[in-house]
């Protein structure tokens, strides 16, 4: 467990609809044992807005104390770590938020064994599947968050031809699933998740738990609307090139990348606005084509990644003539505004137009 102090477990959740004092403590149980890469856990160690320390040490006023149980960061090992999960299952760790990272395999398609597991069943000596843990914990959670594209929609491991039949959390629990507190699944996609997008979503939910914010606004893909309501292109500093019909035809160019594979115009993501860390990095804004990694259709609907998206062919042709004309006009104006006015000189008389007023 990682937390600011070892205070006792928080108050249990008030019954649905009842007004009660907000909990003083909230546990975050984090399962990384989906089919993933732990890249989302690693990603949150990069977050600074807010940082994981900010959340754990109460640097932000009004929040309950947070106890994080994440295998990548935990002090405890083995059963000492698993104890929190068993406690949560038994209702002894209330309230808790369940975070799932990695896609959910289909364990029904094979005779025996496991695709993904966490811990060992004391009765059978066999691994406990990740699906089993979700079944045990989701009904008891205050909220369930899918962290990263694998957990939200299946992601890379759910690509065509995959042997595990894996899927996103909502495919597994049902798109209309509600937590016992009435919250839908909260999806924060991204491959990996943008660090601040995730910690900020957790922060919002903590405000909500504390009674300081209304129900988290989500779109029909269960994404926070303030993070995923705009497209990559709408936030891209290369969109100006697009407007002028000026397209990169090779990688390494500073121009708009749609003709060399960028899907930014149709992808919901704020990376071009937010950058990757502290405003640094990103995707098309720094020369990387958008491959749609936040999207439910990722990866198959964007492959082969380096080909021009079919839609871009039409739209870039359309913008071509207009863009060329605009570029030419702007170039003329640009030349004009690149010249200083003619009255700035070092000659012996003033030519600014100033006249001494005499009264």
């Amino acid at each position: 467990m990682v937390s600011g102090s070892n205070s006792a477990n928080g108050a249990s959740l008030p019954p649905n609809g009842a007004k009660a004092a907000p909990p003083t403590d909230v546990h975050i149980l984090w399962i990384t044992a989906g089919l993933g890469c732990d890249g989302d856990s690693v990603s949150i160690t990069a977050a600074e807005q807010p940082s994981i320390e900010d959340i754990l040490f109460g640097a932000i006023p009004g929040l309950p104390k947070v106890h994080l149980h994440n295998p990548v960061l935990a002090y405890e090992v083995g059963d000492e770590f698993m104890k929190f999960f068993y406690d949560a299952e038994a209702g002894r760790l209330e309230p808790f938020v369940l975070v799932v990272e990695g896609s959910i395999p289909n364990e029904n398609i094979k005779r025996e064994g496991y695709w993904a597991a966490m811990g060992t069943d004391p009765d059978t000596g066999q691994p406990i599947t990740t699906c089993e843990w979700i079944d045990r914990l989701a009904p008891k959670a205050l909220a369930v968050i899918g962290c990263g594209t694998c957990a939200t929609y299946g992601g890379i491991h759910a690509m065509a031809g995959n042997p595990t039949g894996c899927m996103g959390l909502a495919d597994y629990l049902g798109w209309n699933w509600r937590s016992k507190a009435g919250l839908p699944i909260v999806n924060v996609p991204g491959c990996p998740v943008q660090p601040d997008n995730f910690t900020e979503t957790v922060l919002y939910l903590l405000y909500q738990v504390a009674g300081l914010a209304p129900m988290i606004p989500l779109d029909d893909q269960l994404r926070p609307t303030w993070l995923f309501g705009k497209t990559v292109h709408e936030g891209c500093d290369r969109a100006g090139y697009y407007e002028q019909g000026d397209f990169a035809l090779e990688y390494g160019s500073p121009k708009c990348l749609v003709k060399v594979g960028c899907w930014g115009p149709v992808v919901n993501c704020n990376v071009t606005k937010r950058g990757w860390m502290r405003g640094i990095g990103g995707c098309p804004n720094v020369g990387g084509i958008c491959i749609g990694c936040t999207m439910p259709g990722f990866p198959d609907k964007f492959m082969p990644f380096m080909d021009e998206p079919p839609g871009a062919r039409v739209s870039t042709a359309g913008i071509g003539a207009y863009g060329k004309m605009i570029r030419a006009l702007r170039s003329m104006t640009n030349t004009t505004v690149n010249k200083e006015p003619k009255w700035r000189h070092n000659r012996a008389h003033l030519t600014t137009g100033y006249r001494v007023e005499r009264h």
Partner: protein
Amino acid sequence: MATTVLPQKEQSGSTRKLVEMNWDPITRIVGSLGIFTKIDFENREVAECYSTSSIFRGYSVFMKGKDPRDAHFITSRICGICGDNHATCAVYAQNMAFGVKPPPLGEWMINLGEAAEYMFDHCLYQDNLVGVDFCENMVKETNPEVWTKAQQTSAPNAEKHGFRTIADIMTALNPFTGEFYRETLQASRYTREMFCLMEGRHVHPSTLYPGGIGTPATVQVFTDFAVRLVRYAEFMKRVVPLHDDLFNFFYEALPGYEKVGQRRILLGCWGSFNDPETCDYKYKNMSEWGRNMFVTPGVIVDGQLVTNDLVQINLGMRILLGSSYYDSWENAEMFVKRDPLGNPIDRNHPWNQTTIPKPQKRDFAGNYTWVMSPRWFDKRTGDHLALDTGGGPIARLWATALSGLVNLEYIKATGNSVKIRLPKTALKPETEFEWKIPQWSNAIERDRARTYFQAYACAAAFHFLEQGMKEIHAGRTKTWSEFTVPEEAIGCGFHEAVRGVLSHHVVIRDGKIANYHPYPPTPWNANPRDIYGTPGPYEDAVQNTPIFENNGPENFKGIDIMRAVRSFDPCLPCGVHMYDGETKVLETRHVPMYGVGGSKE
């Protein structure tokens, strides 16, 4: 708990009382790892160890038939802490298969990105994950007498790092509250910013492509990188002496600690940082450009360099099934019978591997993990060597030191050491560190090498930065070269992922991927007993580990085992668990015994 059925090896000699202790999952690593052991508390040693991984994803299966240009985007997703190493290695393999060589500036920028990855990843792992095993809280819980001694021991390098006693260092490593823990977390962030400056995003890069990199090469990008690099160099001037003090103290405080995690010196390094002057990505020239890498490849057996030739390294790779959940591919197609130089390629080589997953019950007497057993075939002896990477740095420094080929302004390989020079920074003078080949391949030396390699990556980055700036100043700002995808081709990439050897092997047919097999470091380290019964390196290293922890079976932390396992920097998005189980007493006699099983809580 019940039926963790461990096979019992025949024990000659008298009765031993073994206690089964398991840790599942092992935390503070990446991925899921379970370590199942039997411990002889009376003799204070680990008798047996099994390592198991609990995740299967199937990259080699679902990549078939995909566009070969997509390989680096897809394989980056193998790993969430060094995905970019995969993307880079895939790009190397694509470059070979497509016959393309990036412009020199593109290569320098990729080297800068990868150097930043080493700086970040080792930093986070060393002091935010491994460091916790050496922190005040942990040492007090496992060895109070060591804590007492630490309080009385002055840190020899106190003036360099600022901590007066060894205990002060341990306190500073306490998770989240420790001063040094928090500083390291910050360092792991600005080094990731450096990474993002070159490769766009951490951990799955956005700007890498076959043929080079898409990041526009501007003065600004290099300035932003440089100011952070200098900050890290200054940080390193404190971090290296700090770890020397901490690790030397463990040898002193716990005599015999060199045995923890020790195994035979069997190290592999596949080389890192290509030199654009010689690297043309042609297989037939691979021996030469491999030796020119800025981290030299090498296979080291019993302290001797067997080869530093990437072609020989490639030819020796074998993937054995052993105790893993897969079917054999002995009747599957042979994709590559000979390499481009005419050398025969084995059926068990990654180019010819066919992955056939077969989920099944875990059985420690049979198959118990999703990890296969990579081995390196030593043609001198006919042995299938269970090489390890020691978490990466120890093998990289060892191979580089023995070869004596790297000779830069900032780094010199001497034949028995590596000298690393960091230039003057804001508050610290120019500083030289010398990593000397250690006596042992053990937990402490693996961890020590990590801190020296952080300095190595930093020093190498100064070189790459200067070379890149030269290109920009000369107006050669192209970072990417055009290519076409051939209908038929093969390719291989060799790189060092943060935690060690990384290879990608691709076969292209009809313009699509016909076969693709990545081999990251963790399969080399975390693998199970192979078909010859040879245990994998974790198993081997833990089985040799003496127990120094004071706690008995009732409140055993397994800290010495944890230090042994974590020294390899386990990264198992291909899976492993350690499991702190209830104790179970076994009587082991001189007859084989099965079905350890049984007791319930």
